[in-house]
Every structure is written in C-alpha cells, then in structure tokens.
C-alpha cells in the first residue's frame, strides 16, 4: 500500500498532495488526453496537459503526398467532429493561391454544408458537456438531432463522419435532389429543440450551479493565449472570422455574433462558453435559411475543378471559422506537384494550452466542466 498517498511533486511539501492522471483513458477527457493533476484533497493545485496520443503526422503526410488535392481527406481526420469545416479551410487556401473563380452554386452549398456541420459539432460539444456534468438525457436528445444532419451528409457525400466532399475548385459531386427540402425540414424541426434544450439543461439550476463562475477566462487572458471561436466570444469579445475576415460568401448573409454576457455568473465562465454555442446554432440556422433562398438551382459543381493543380512559388495563410475557432492553414508551395509545407493552426491546441491558467484552484469536478466547456477535439490537438 505504500504507493498510494506518498507521491509528491516537492519533497518539502508535507505529503499532502497527490499526483493523479486524468486520462488517457478517462470518460471525460474527450478522447486521449492525459491531464496530470496535482491534488490537495479534491482541489486541483496544478494541471499539466499531456498530448500526443493521437498524433498522426498530418503535416508530414501533406508534404510527402506530392499532390494538393490528396491532402483534403487528411484534413477530415484532424477535427473529425467538424470534418466539412476542416476541408473548407484547406480548399479555400489552395483556391486563393490558384486565384480560382468558384461557381455561385458551389459557394452556397459550401456555406449550407459548413453551417450544418457547425450545428452538428456544437450539438456534440454541448451534449458531451452536459454528459460530463451528469446530465445524460440531453446528450441523447441532441444526438437525435445530430443524426438528422449526418443523414443529410450521408445522402450528399456518402459518408457520415469523414466526408472528403469539398475539393479544390468545387465539390466532389452535386447535392442530391431533395437536399434543399431535407435541409429546410431540418431547420424547421430544429428550432423548437433549442428551446427544449434551454429548458432542460441551460437554465437548469443544478447546471448553472455547476458552470457559473467556474473556469473564468477574462478577455485579456483569452487574447494573450490567442483564443478564438466560442471560447473567445464567451469571454465577451465580438470576433468571428465569418464577419471580421469574410471568406467564401459569408459577407452576403445577415447574422449576429453571440457573445458571453455573464448572465448567470462571471463573464467568461463555463456557462458563457456553453451558451455562446447554443446561440450560435440559432444564427447558423438563420444563415442556412438565407443560403437556401439564394442558392441557384442549376449549375455544375465540378466545372471549376482544375485537372491538375499547378502552383507558382508562393505562400499563404488562410483562416476560417470552424466550430472550435480559428483554423488557419499556412501553405508554402514550390514548383513541385505538392505543397512544400502545410502547417495547420488548430484552435483546440491553442485552447488546451490555456487550461492550466484557468483551472488552478478548482475542484476535480470543475476540471471536467472546464475541459468540456472549451470543447477540444484531440484529433485536432495532436493532428
């Protein structure tokens, strides 16, 4: 029994602290993340995130493939929860290097698909967050909705998780005939579900008790750590690349950027980050509705796809707003067939790095809430 309580980080301390590994096989680390916790009773004194369990050499693969188009399926595997958004970022980067003109219809389909994907991703993020706090039922309600989106994607691309649907210059194939009908149907049925979610989880007293004033991330700290996406907006900063650095055709749509307000606690707490995601789903629905109205019915989605991608020497940093935040691709092209270098700036990785800063002094149960509220995907952290 001698091993149990005696591990201390500092030989001078009075054997009060216990080092414990949360993960890599822990139900609430959202994948293979290992957090080394230094505990005093249940109070977390120190957190050391250990990553790398899911490293698949994405960047090296991209360099070795020798072809720009072949990289797209690998981007899917970074953030497997929002694969469409990962593809979109990459293809837009290459299109900008190529200075390609993209057909209207393709742009509209891309926006609809990536907003649907944003909703699907937030549904998983919110559901898993609730699950971490012991609310099992909302998780399954949200999965029912996510299922509908995945069904639309399956009809469209043939896959349910890793799609390989967007290509440089267009899409792999046209959307099915009833795509518009299915999507409109989903938008109609999903709106009331958000209200149901708010009744069941968001404004639940216990849920608020568990998330308000926990893991407070002040705006300044968030900026210092280069946070983005819902995490940054949860801290009260209005920053969304769809508005502030529009890509694709996002400048044509009318939508709001929800930010945290400290409604039930301190500005920038777990509840704010959670609620930003819930409200973003409503805004995504607005975008989808407008895009469905504006989408041309006819047009070849593959007409602008280049037979062979030949790039001049050059480099580009292209950033897009994924459900988790700013996804940036830094691509250097030389005269060879494939990219010389592809560097992905993954929002999950950035957000994970600030975990020690916002979780000091919390309880183990809060740790779970904080990890859940920053909504990391380990595939993207490790790449």
């Amino acid at each position, binding site marked *: 029994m001698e091993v149990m309580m005696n591990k201390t980080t500092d030989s001078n301390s009075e054997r009060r602290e216990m080092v414990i590994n949360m993960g890599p096989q822990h139900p609430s680390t959202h994948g293979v993340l290992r957090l080394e916790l230094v505990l005093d009773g*249940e109070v977390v004194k120190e957190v050391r995130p250990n990553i790398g369990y899911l490293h698949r050499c994405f960047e090296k693969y991209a360099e070795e493939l020798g072809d720009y188009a072949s990289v797209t399926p690998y981007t899917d595997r970074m953030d497997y929860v929002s694969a469409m958004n990962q593809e979109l970022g990459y293809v837009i980067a290459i299109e900008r290097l190529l200075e390609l003109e993209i057909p209207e219809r393709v742009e509209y389909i891309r926006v609809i698909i990536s907003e649907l994907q944003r909703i699907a991703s937030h549904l998983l993020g919110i559901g898993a967050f609730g699950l971490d*706090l*012991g609310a*099992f039922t909302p998780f399954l309600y949200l999965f029912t909705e996510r299922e509908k989106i995945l069904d639309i994607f399956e009809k469209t691309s043939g896959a349910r998780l890793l799609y390989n649907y967007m290509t440089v210059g267009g899409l792999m194939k046209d959307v099915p005939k009833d795509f518009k009908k299915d999507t409109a149907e989903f938008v109609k049925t999903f709106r009331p579900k958000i209200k149901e979610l708010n009744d069941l989880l968001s404004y639940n007293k216990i849920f608020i008790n568990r998330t308000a004033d926990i893991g407070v991330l002040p705006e300044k700290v968030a900026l210092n750590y280069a946070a983005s996406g819902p995490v940054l907006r949860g801290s009260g900063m209005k920053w969304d690349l769809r508005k502030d650095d529009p890509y694709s055709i996002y400048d044509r749509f009318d939508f709001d950027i929800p930010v945290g307000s400290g409604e039930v606690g301190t500005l920038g707490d777990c509840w704010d980050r959670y609620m930003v995601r819930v409200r973003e789903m409503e805004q995504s629905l607005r975008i989808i509705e407008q895009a469905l109205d504006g989408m041309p019915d006819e047009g070849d989605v593959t007409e602008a796809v280049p037979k062979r991608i030949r790039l001049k020497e050059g480099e580009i940093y292209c950033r897009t707003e994924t459900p988790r935040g700013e996804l940036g691709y830094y691509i250097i092209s030389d005269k060879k067939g494939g990219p010389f270098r592809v560097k992905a700036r993954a929002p999950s990785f950035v957000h994970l790095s600030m975990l020690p800063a916002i979780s000091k002094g919390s309880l183990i149960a809060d740790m779970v809430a904080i990890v859940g509220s920053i909504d990391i995907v380990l595939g993207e952290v490790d790449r």
Partner: protein
Amino acid sequence: MIESYGNINPVLAVLIHALIPLTIILVYALVAIWGERKVAGFIQDRLGPHRVGGWHGWAQSIADLLKLIQKEDIVPKDASRFLFKFAPFMMFAASYAAFAVLPFSSWYIGSMIDIGVFYLIAITSVLTLSVIMAGWASNNKWSLLGGMRSAAQLVSYEVPTIATVLTVIVVSGSLNLMTVTEMQSGNDILGFLPNWFIFQNPFLIIAFGIFFISILVESHRVPFDLPESESELVAGYQTEYSGMRWAMFMLAEYADMLLLSLLGVTLFFGGWNSPFGSFMSGPAWGFFWFLLKGFMLVFVMMWIRWTLPRYRVDQLMHICWGILIPATFVNLILVALWEVVF
C-alpha cells in the same frame, strides 16, 4: 417473531425469516435493473433493452447476471486482498440486514424489535464503512477519492435522515416500525384521506421532502451520485471491481434504494395499509401495497436520475449543513408544536 411459530425448529424459523427478504431483494434487483433501463429508454426517447427473452427484453438482467458470473475475478496486484474481497459482501450484508425490521405485511416482519428504527439506521451506517473499505483497498487513486467522497457524503447526510425520522417518531411515539404502521390505519382525514402520517401533519410533508433528498444521497443516486460519478471519478470506489464482486455492489445499491424507499413508505405513507381503507386490505394485500408504494418511490428516484445533472461535492455539503439540517430541526420543533396544539 420466532415465538409465534410454536413447534417449528427455531433454526428453520430463522432461515425462513431470512430467506423471504432475500428472495424479494434478488427478484426486485433483477426487475429494477431492467426497469431502470426501460425507464431510461423511455425518458431518452429510445427503446431500451429489447431483444433478450422476447417481450420488451425482460430477460436482459438475467443475461447480464449470467455474463457477470462468467467474468474473471480480478484483484489488483497491490490491493489489500482481504478487504478488497470482503467489501462488496459487507455492503450487501448491511442493506440486507436492515430489511429484518421492515413490516412487509400485518403478519410478516423479520424481527419485531422495539427499537426497529434505531437498528435500521445503525446497521445502514455500515454501508459507509464498506465503501471506504472498497475505495482504500483497491489501491487506486480514483477509488480512494470515491471512497473519501462517499464517507463525507454519507456521514453528513445521516444527520438530516435521522432527524427527519425523528420527526415521525415525535408523532408516532414508537420506534417499532410495526406499531408505526398500525397507527396509520384507517381513512379518517377529511373523511376520505388515509391516516398516513404525511396527511396527518402538514409539517411532515416538509419532513418527507427532506427525507427523500437525504435518501437520494444515502443511496448514491443522481443528482448526488458523487462517490461513483463516472464522468469525474471513472467509477469511484467500484473502479477496480469486476464480475460478481461488482455485481454485489450493484445489488447492494439497488437493495439500498428499495430499503430506504420502504422506510419512507413505512414512516410517511402508511406502510402496508391500503389507501382505500378496508377495501383491498389484509395480510396478502399488505405485501402488495407495501412493495407497490416502495416501487413508486424507486421509480421517482429513477426519473430524477435520468433528468438532472449532478451536484458538486462542496455544493452537496452546503445543501446538507447549510440548508437541510437547520430546516430539519426547525421542522422538528414545528411538528412537535402542531402535535401539542392539535
């Protein structure tokens, strides 16, 4: 009530007395685990177990039990072997032993002792010990944390539980659960309501509220299932257990749920008394009503489990020491005053 059997061999009589609650617990556990999964399924908009045995997967629990029997019995290398192996059985024994003083029907009670309530509360405290034992003996930090949480939680919540039981004792004047039940016979309140304690005294409704919250904690149910909260502590003190030892924990947990629900039924809802006066009453109906009322409370516990998130450990302690305990004692005085005045 061994004496009342006259000619039967005392050892045989004890055995029969012991086997009746055991049978009830075992059958109930199988039904309740299946029922819990069905309830969860319906609340979550899905079907739940639906294959094994045909009709609504009724044999699912039996299949699970058979699976658990076949599992390898793993004891961690550095575990304290005796305590590790002993803890699950001790836990079950504690809740099983408490069934002895519950009056299942007007002619059946395991042991008619005058300090029934006192005995029940004392014997269920052993649960705490076995949880700490399991948590410590596993030599796993998560288990240890679960064990410590459980100790803090159970010891704290024994205070409001006992205090609410005390409020009922103030009204009944007896610690014998059979006498407590007999006092609740008849339908005299407002001409039609049964004479259950919960209807006899308005402050006992508050007492029941506090009692119900406390038994949720005592039986580790959501929103107070902190000792085994899977998203924080993996599985708490059960983390290292497998096979039948783990099944014993599950059995004890469900037995504990039933035990505390039945205690609540005895104290507040008239025990084996029929809600319709002399209609459908009698010794056999007594069994039916007693268990039915118990299952209703168990169902409410399941309902809560699949609806609410979980409290945090410090909030749990605050609810106990900051809200429930003062409220209980104020309530105790009010109940006593009501009894004096009316």
